[in-house]
């Protein structure tokens, strides 16, 4: 039985930073199986988590000086929430892992403690039927596990309250920016060539700045300012930060010198790009529903499309007239 340390080393920290940046994110995993934290006996509790190293690190680091069994499921290096959604943190995998780790021999009780965010993947009554283990969904955040233990294994309202703080939003942004790198690079190259051919290289560069600003406005600024931007629609929030960037860009790039068509084009296309990226951020939040995103897309996508097409027409008109 592997014994594990609850202190995180510098390498664990480095690994976390790299993962946050999306470097080798998919390969950041620990072997699945049963681990011992401290010196647990057959009566000590069993916690279940994913084999994403960040989940595992977080769980073990809060369990200093406690005796707990940790059952790590094979989720292919994906965190609890996404793995539950994708079906790798599942009833089937849990049942299988209980069998493989001989858990019925290791502990005398029949109780498992799962993170609340694993619930979309696991049917507690099925696990009970197939293995005899009953499941308690304990807390949303790993930080609350010690408090849960000290509270007689009872979940308080605070432990099951989902949050999305400034910090929680900030750590998501590097990965999102990296994920958008490829489409952004292609668009930027295309924009530069077209604008440079139409108006000269200086305009090419300006277009690139405008576009990059729109991407950052949609992926980073709007998510950071999320609760303070008015409205419920993500597309609208992204549209607002995009509009703010259009105005900033207008001032920075001497907009008064532009002809009216270019000005229109900038104010039409920049907010549209920003709105799209903010709408896409719904995939990262812990409170947006799929039906809500569908509804937003049905309304916002045509508007975005028309804005971009109009923008292009304005640029061409500005060139020809």
């Amino acid at each position, binding site marked *: 039985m592997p014994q594990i340390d609850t202190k995180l080393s510098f390498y664990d920290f480095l690994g976390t930073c790299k993962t946050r940046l999306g470097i080798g994110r998919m390969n950041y995993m620990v072997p699945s199986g049963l681990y011992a934290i401290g010196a647990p006996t057959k009566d000590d509790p069993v916690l279940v988590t994913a084999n994403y190293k960040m989940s595992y690190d977080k769980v073990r680091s809060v369990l200093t000086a406690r005796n707990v069994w940790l059952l790590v499921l094979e989720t292919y290096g994906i965190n609890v929430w*996404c793995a539950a959604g994708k079906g790798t943190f599942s009833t089937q995998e849990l049942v299988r892992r209980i069998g493989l780790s001989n858990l019925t021999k290791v502990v005398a009780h029949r109780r498992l403690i799962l993170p*609340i965010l694993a619930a979309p*993947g696991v049917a507690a009554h099925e696990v009970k039927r197939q293995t005899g283990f009953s499941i308690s*969904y304990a807390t949303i955040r790993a930080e609350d596990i010690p408090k849960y233990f000290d509270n007689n294994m009872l979940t308080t309202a605070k432990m099951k309250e*989902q*949050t999305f703080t400034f910090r929680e939003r900030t750590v998501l942004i590097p990965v999102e920016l990296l994920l958008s790198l490829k489409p952004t690079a292609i668009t930027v190259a295309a924009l530069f060539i077209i604008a440079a051919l139409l108006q000269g290289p200086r305009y090419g560069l300006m277009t690139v700045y405008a576009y990059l600003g729109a991407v950052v406005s949609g992926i980073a600024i709007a998510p950071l300012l*999320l609760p303070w931007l008015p409205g419920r629609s993500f597309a609208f929030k992204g549209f607002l930060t995009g509009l703010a960037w259009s105005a900033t860009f207008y001032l920075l790039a001497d907009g008064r010198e532009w002809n009216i068509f270019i000005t229109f084009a900038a104010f039409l296309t920049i907010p549209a790009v920003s709105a799209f990226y903010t709408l896409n951020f719904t995939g990262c939040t812990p*409170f947006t529903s799929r039906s*809500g*995103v569908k509804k937003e897309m049905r309304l916002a996508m045509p508007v975005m499309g028309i804005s971009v097409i109009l923008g292009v027409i304005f640029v061409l008109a500005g060139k020809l007239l």
Partner: protein
Amino acid sequence: MKGFSYLRNVATLKLNIKKCIGCGRCLEVCPHQVFSLAEKKAIITNFDACMECGACAINCPSTAIFVDSGVGCATGLINEWIHEQKMFSARKKCC
């Protein structure tokens, strides 16, 4: 959820009171406190907070809950739509 709210009246969540046995599991798993328990039956008290994660439906021992859960980001949905149209095989690229 404090400080955040998303579109109203869109969630596909449905509760069949007749089937409910009042076990309280849905209250335990929902990260947005959508349900309460009244007279040994679950009731939906915070419908608009539902993010369609599906936790309540899969964990309800008497299949009293329905919700259409799945990918919730624009790229994921576009890929899904493309897939439905069978234009070309989409690659899932969500979280």
